[in-house]
């Protein structure tokens, strides 16, 4: 048996048509949809504060509606997604209403939650969990700012349990991205939870497809060689031994080759010998990749060791406000004029009593996007001046956003681009990477029909 698992979303904000195009152009067993980058949860937490029925990836509802014809025509197609964000039950209820409205009310939705440990933090700290920052070693108790969200990265077990209970749709909160693929694999192949090499193999496949088109030609230096407008999203064909083939729908754009798969394997990893998920400690250094045919690349040889005893925790705290404004500066000496503009703005703000904890001035176009590498080229006539400020005081950051437009009439000649409106001040949520013992977290799985989920509480 070959298990065909595709990924149609790599982050909240990814292409809304990609999931539908995937299921229409390829025969799939599972469609995964990954919506939660490191800090997405803190943004969703803020949405839930304002509205108790919000806090999940609302894009998923648009996607789900677009998938209804395919879900009716392909009764074996299942969906596994972390769209639940900070509110998996509300997400399931919203999804259930869409399904019930399309005559799919009898289908089961499984919800995985229990990842949200924010309310338990004081009790856990009293019980001896210090939640040391993995970068600095400081205990969480030393943090003065308010915590916005704290979620354990759950693993594949609860996803597999939901599938075993008959769920056709599994909606989770924070789970490790690769676990969206590992859960279905364990369920379908009947692996044991100490089949480390197989769990590692599925984790590698899940890691390669988790960012959507980044495995199929997106973010690829040889982009000139391919068609990205119609880029196909990735499919992992998993085997019972944990090895896989990465491919994409026939006729779609993009490419799957040794280069794209190797690049994505390395994407956002640390020590490749220890790719840690709640399911396994996977070793990427034993992995081999081999192109088999056009747009088909085999991944073999992943090995794994026993899973970590602790869950990674995605914890974020409020850290003041940030705003960025930009303006086009045209001149024979554009960098000099841009820097003068920045000084004028900052001097006016200082006179108004606003100095900022952090300020950054960039002259984009002059080689400053990656600091220190390139000087402005001779003959440069324009740069985009970009000023960013960060400060604990919201009023000061708000005032900064109002200091760009005045430059149009009270700054040097040769400025443009301030007509697109004032910049926005936004709250900053800073990440506090930490761990929690698995025994201190209680993941939950709840499976019922869409009809039951769509009934009011």
């Amino acid at each position, binding site marked *: 048996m070959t298990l065909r698992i595709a990924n149609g979303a790599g982050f909240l904000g990814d292409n809304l048509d990609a999931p539908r195009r995937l299921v229409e152009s390829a025969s799939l067993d599972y469609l995964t949809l990954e919506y939660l980058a490191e800090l997405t949860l803190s943004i969703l937490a803020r949405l839930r504060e304002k509205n108790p029925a919000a806090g999940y990836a609302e894009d998923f509802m648009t996607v789900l509606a677009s998938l209804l014809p395919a879900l009716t025509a392909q009764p074996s197609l299942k969906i596994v997604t972390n769209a639940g964000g900070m509110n998996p039950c509300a997400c399931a209820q919203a999804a259930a209403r869409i399904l019930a409205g399309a005559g799919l009310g009898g289908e089961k939705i499984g919800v995985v939650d229990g990842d949200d440990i924010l309310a338990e933090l004081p009790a856990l700290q009293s019980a001896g969990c210090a939640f040391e920052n993995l970068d600095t070693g400081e205990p969480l108790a030393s943090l003065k700012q308010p915590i916005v969200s704290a979620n354990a990265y759950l693993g594949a077990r609860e996803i597999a349990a939901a599938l075993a209970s008959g769920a056709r749709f599994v909606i989770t909160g924070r789970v490790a991205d690769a676990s969206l693929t590992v859960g279905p694999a364990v369920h379908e192949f009947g692996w044991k939870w100490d089949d480390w090499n197989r769990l590692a193999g599925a984790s590698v496949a899940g890691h390669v497809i988790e960012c959507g088109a980044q495995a199929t030609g997106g973010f690829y230096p040889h982009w000139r060689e391919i068609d990205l407008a119609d880029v196909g999203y990735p499919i992992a064909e998993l085997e019972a031994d944990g090895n896989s083939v990465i491919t994409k729908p026939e006729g779609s754009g993009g490419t799957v080759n040794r*280069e794209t798969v*190797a690049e994505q394997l390395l*994407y956002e990893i640390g020590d490749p010998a220890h790719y840690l998920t709640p399911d396994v400690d996977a070793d990427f250094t034993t992995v*081999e990749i081999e192109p088999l045919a056009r747009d088909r690349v085999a991944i073999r040889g992943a090995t794994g060791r026993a899973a970590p005893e602790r869950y990674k925790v995605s914890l974020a705290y409020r850290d003041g406000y940030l705003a960025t404004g930009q303006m086009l500066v045209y001149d024979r000496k554009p960098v000099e004029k841009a820097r003068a503009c920045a000084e004028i703005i900052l001097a006016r703000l200082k006179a108004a009593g606003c100095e900022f904890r952090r300020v950054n001035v960039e002259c984009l176009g002059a080689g400053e996007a*990656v600091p220190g590498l390139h000087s402005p080229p001779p003959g440069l006539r324009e740069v985009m001046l970009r000023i960013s400020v960060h400060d604990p005081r919201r009023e000061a950051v708000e005032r900064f956003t109002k200091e760009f437009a005045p430059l149009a009439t009270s700054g040097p000649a040769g400025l443009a681009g301030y007509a697109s409106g004032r910049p926005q001040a936004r709250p900053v949520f800073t*990440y506090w990477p930490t761990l929690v013992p698995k025994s201190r977290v209680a993941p939950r799985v709840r499976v019922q029909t869409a009809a039951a989920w769509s009934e009011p509480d």
Partner: protein
Amino acid sequence: MAKTILLSQIAHARSGDKGNHANLGVIAYTPAGFEYLRDMLTNERVADFFGGLGCSRVERFELPRLWALNFLLYDALAGGASRSLRIDTQGKLLSTAIADLTLPMPKNLSAMQRR
């Protein structure tokens, strides 16, 4: 004859963020290229190239079966995804930037180039 080559003649790369750290995967086009990079693309060379980022240190990992090196650039992102004030909050440009790193001309360049 040129005395140097660009990294992009023998390798490709991908970069991203891990909190306030950046990761940079560099992949040789051929095994010969990997052997050369293993010798030449040292932590020091990468740290020096990206000196303007203010990294606290650079750590290198080897993946010989993938002809690849993975670099972790600690504290390279001026705060990381949520609080960096740079346009490249997540270090996404680093993989394109490192294409310009110059290396001494190897003896067997043709065995290292993309086919």
